[in-house]
């Protein structure tokens, strides 16, 4: 057995197992999402991937982020995606006609970017495995009241960026209404 994995199991037991299980679900669902030809199936796999990601957040003890991940992405945004796809009413033959553009150059670039990002992730995460497992599996101080831990900095230290984001969202809403309603 790998020493790292052994340490994780020894110290964090269930957490480590849950972490790797959620990671496997997330990655497998993400791959299936890309591979499925039926767009509705893709949406459902992406939802499962988001739920797996939320599971990873739970094992890292950031419940708030996990719940928001499910609530906003899986529960709201993906429902709208599904809605639009259903209303587009793509037929099977239309889907079959769609093929990836055969540009070898694009494939090469995508492969290079993929390996660079994997390399960077591995490089960045190596020191973390030398830390004690408790530190790896989330800060206990944050776990007590994760809402307060996020809310107070958000509304004091980061108030200006937060408000600017909300104005941006407002602009997007107004834009969407202006686009769909011809006569206001």
């Amino acid at each position, binding site marked *: 057995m790998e020493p790292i994995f052994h340490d994780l199991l020894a110290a964090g037991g*269930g957490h480590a197992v849950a972490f790797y299980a959620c990671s496997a679900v997330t990655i497998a669902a993400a791959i299936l999402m890309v591979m499925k030809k039926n767009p509705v199936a893709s949406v*459902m796999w992406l*939802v499962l991937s988001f739920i797996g990601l939320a599971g990873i957040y739970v094992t890292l003890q950031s*419940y708030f982020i996990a*719940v928001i991940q*499910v*609530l906003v992405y899986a*529960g709201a945004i993906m*429902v709208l995606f599904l809605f639009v796809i*259903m209303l587009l009413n793509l037929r099977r033959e239309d889907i079959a006609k769609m093929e990836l553009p055969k540009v070898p150059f694009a494939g090469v670039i995508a492969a290079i970017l993929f390996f660079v990002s994997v390399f960077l992730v591995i490089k960045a995460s190596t020191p973390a495995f030398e830390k004690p497992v408790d530190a790896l599996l989330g800060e206990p101080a944050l776990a007590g009241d994760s809402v307060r831990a996020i809310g107070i900095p958000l509304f004091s230290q980061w108030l200006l960026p937060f408000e600017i984001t909300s104005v941006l969202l407002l602009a997007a809403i107004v834009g969407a209404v202006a686009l769909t309603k011809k006569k206001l």
Partner: protein
Amino acid sequence: MDFWIDDIGWPFIKIFIIANVALMMVALLVWAERRVAALIQDRLGPNRVGPLGLLQPVADVIKLFLKEDLTPGHVNRPFFIIAPALTMMPAIISLAVIPFGASLIIADLDIGILFIFAISSLAVYGITIGGWASNSKYSLLGGIRSTAQMISYEICLGLSVIGVFMLSKSLRLQDVVLMQGDGIWLFGEHYTGIMGKILDWNIFKQPIGFILFMIAGFAETNRTPFDLAEAEQELAAGFHTEFSSMKFALYFLGEYAAMISIGAITVTLYLGGWTFFGLENLGGSFSWLTQILIFAVKLLALQFFFIWVRWTIPRFRYDQLMRLGWQVLLPIGLANILLTGVLKLIFKV
């Protein structure tokens, strides 16, 4: 080995008990719905199977099990099969964070209510996917209607409870329960008389929020007056037109499971949860039993209200439903948050 007992054993037993009690309550509700409907329409209702007809749900379930499980040839099979389960699941899962007693809670999360909203936001997939996978016009229209309705009213549901959490200063449901019924704080004084205790329930401190939550709750569970997803005269049976046998039963029972989960949330947030002005401590070391009973009585009273409304009020038209959701309930919900903040400053609650 403490790990296996404390982290695996006890939670598993609690989950087993709560999930099964919830399913029993679903069966009871199906019976109650038919009996109350009969009462309201001056009929007898099912009264032959067992005492008072109480075993009627058992007979119904056996019938549904034995029926042919027909999967039409034109459906999208994998989605057609998982869709009914996707409807039932969220309602049962959201019971995980509901406190049924002082220590009777599966997961005492500090984000309790957000967990419920996150899980119940997934309920919409069961109906959407079911309607789409059926490959029939009635089903698709029913599914799409229901999706639009549920996402519209989910926003209202979320806004209506914010007032409660402004008062409790915590998202943990156990804190919300304990905050109610111990006497109201007004202008820095603690009134612990019986009136003070009654007025401490959130239904009196958040009346607007309570009404909004109930309306949105009816819409979220697809109950009359918001059951447009299955409006017979327009859409046959809506999203579940093509489903038969246990797949239909899962949709049918899923509605009742959702009623129980919305009811349990309402009891916890607005009606004092498992407390009843000191009565919850009755019975010494068996007080947990009293607490469950208190919770069950409140929950059943609320379910009676749900059924009562269904057999009294006619269905909305679809444009009325959307107008009510977006142009009436949403602004009121936002105003309620502002009002709560202002009143909180004035009364120093």
